[in-house]
């Protein structure tokens, strides 16, 4: 029982982090139709900028507030200057461009912060552990478990209950029709891309007290996020949530039950989904 709870919480906290990153990826794909390879690099930048801000103002909360905003600003610049030029073109252009952005950002991080490892401390409020059955459990992980649904819920409400959210969904459903009824689609695309990068960056900032920072840290997470997005359904919000939780739990329980085979589990899941239901759990037909 104790092991079960510990693994459940381990899986949930990792799943929530994956969710935040995947939901940005899937939203950008759903609305802009761009598969963003550089998404993991924005995750990395979120973590590094949070750390950098904490060197100036030693507060994690200011770091997590300001850092991802700066990354979102970079997202605006990237969308305006680069991404905008490839919307109408073949998908290979998008892949090449976003891959190039990934390489540039990875090297930029190496130039600015060096190739070594860095760590970020959790805020005092969330440091330490709480008793959990016979063991103690880190507070920060419980915070992660809670932060995912809070941010996710806020996002979902935004998409469903606000005018702007409906506009985004309208543009995602039919770009030309949206433009036809007077929605400024280019500005909307910029905003959505900025939101996507912000989500990646906030994922990075949240991950920072939990894993070490190193260049290329985004490359690892982007692979798992892609699996989540494909499994959940490309462009689907609930899909990202379900996919991320499933993957998180699969990885944590896999270490107990599957041993070495655990490494293969996410890929087996991916292959199964592609074979049985290629559009993913919540993906739309077509």
């Amino acid at each position, binding site marked *: 029982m104790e092991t079960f709870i510990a693994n459940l919480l381990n899986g949930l906290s*990792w799943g929530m982090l994956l969710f935040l990153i995947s939901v940005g990826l899937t939203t950008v794909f759903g609305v802009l139709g761009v598969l963003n390879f550089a998404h993991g690099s924005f995750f990395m930048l979120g973590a590094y900028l949070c750390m950098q801000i904490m060197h100036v103002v030693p507060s994690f909360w200011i770091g997590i507030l300001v850092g991802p905003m700066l990354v979102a600003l970079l997202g605006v610049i990237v969308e305006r200057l680069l991404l905008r030029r490839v919307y109408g073109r073949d998908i290979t252009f998008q892949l090449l461009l976003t891959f190039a952005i990934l390489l540039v950002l990875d090297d930029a991080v190496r130039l600015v912060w*060096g190739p070594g490892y860095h760590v970020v401390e959790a805020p005092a409020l969330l440091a330490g552990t709480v008793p959990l059955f016979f063991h103690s459990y880190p507070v920060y992980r419980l915070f992660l478990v809670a932060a995912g649904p809070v941010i996710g819920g806020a996002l979902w409400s935004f998409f469903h209950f606000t005018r702007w959210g409906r506009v985004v969904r309208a543009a995602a459903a039919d770009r030309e029709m949206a433009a036809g009824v007077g929605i400024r689609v280019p500005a909307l695309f910029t905003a959505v891309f900025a939101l996507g990068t912000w989500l990646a960056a906030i994922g990075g900032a949240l991950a920072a007290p939990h894993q070490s920072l*190193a260049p290329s840290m985004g490359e690892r997470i982007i692979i798992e996020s892609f699996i989540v997005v494909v499994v959940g359904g490309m462009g689907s919000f609930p899909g990202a949530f379900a996919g991320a939780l499933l993957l998180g739990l699969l990885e*944590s329980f896999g270490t*107990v039950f599957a041993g*070495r085979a655990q490494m293969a589990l996410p890929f087996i899941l991916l292959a199964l989904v592609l074979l049985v239901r290629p559009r993913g759990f919540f993906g739309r037909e077509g």
Partner: protein
Amino acid sequence: MKRFFAILTVILMLAGLLPAAPATAAEPVKIGFVYIMSGPFATYGQFAKKGAELAIDEINKAGGILGRPVEACFEDSTGKPDVAMRAIRKLVYQEKVDCLIGLDSSGVAKSVVPSIAQLKTPLIITHAATPDVTGTVCNRYTFRISLNLAQNVKTAALLAARTDARTWTTVGPDYAFGHQSWEYFQKYLAEIEPGAKFLPKDQIAFPPFKTTDFSAYITKIMQTKPDGVLISLWGGNLIDFVRQGAEMGFFNGDYEVLVTLGAATEVLSALGDKMPEGLWVGSRYWFLANDSALNRDFVKNYHGRFGEYPSYNAHGAYGALLTYKAAVEKAKTVDKDAVVTALEGLTVELPVGTITIRPEDHQAVTDACWGKTAADPAYPIRILKPMQIFRGVDITPPASDTGCTMK
């Protein structure tokens, strides 16, 4: 007449631009370095480069090798065997280097070493720890001056035997290094202490290399209630494991903990005061272990130039250059075959201590330092207190055990 001198000056100046005639100026000795310079492990290449640059500047200032200046060519192995092999070929055929130094990854080392024999260029390995490169795939041109996996784990076993712990488990990266560390540890500890018990395979955790969340593994180990844990994780994996483990109470003193690569400065400086005290940690080189003049100067000069304490990889590259210099001076030529012969059985003083390269398998017999992590106000990182120095002869398995048949 004025005009004549002007023309003469121009001609002389132009002549200065031409490549120097070999007869007059000393041609440099070229050394090719192959380390990971990009990607998540670029920090290891960076350290090696710093160590190499320091050594080269010092050697050149003191008159070079046989009066010739040393010149370095750095190549990025990216940690991939095929890229490393291309880099090595380029260094040998295009740059025409006299010696190769480097290799971080055991996987890379194992796959390029068999080809080194065909290139007929000495290779001095300074980091990759797989026993195989001075074992089953050993050859005449491949040498290693750094502590290998067997030596390091033998030291861990000697330490483990001194503790009260009876039942041991491990956590290590899920590739050859992690598995071999555990295999050798069981073998050596069972030899020293026949009563030692080891948890069965299905209760042992080998997290995949890409893991950033170790909580499930930490929970698993804590559930199996061992007396001692051998940790062979390294780099970012080790940093994540230590922080997450500390949060979950893993280091509260319920187990003896031996961390085979815990005394690496990149890990200690990233963790700072988050590194728990009282863990046994090892490394291939610890900057405070050896109180020789050579080591004191090395640490002082390195710290003065780069503002940090030398990591084991910096020492590896630095030490390899000193080793090569000693071999060339012994052979009195940079001829590759003569240098190889000189390297065999060579005894040379490095900052880590005096090492001897065994002619049988080309592995250096070198001292190992382990210690318990402790805070010290004089240092920004955890240091080792008390330290335990193990003599190279006591921790190096006999050459007959390595499976090396020299070709």
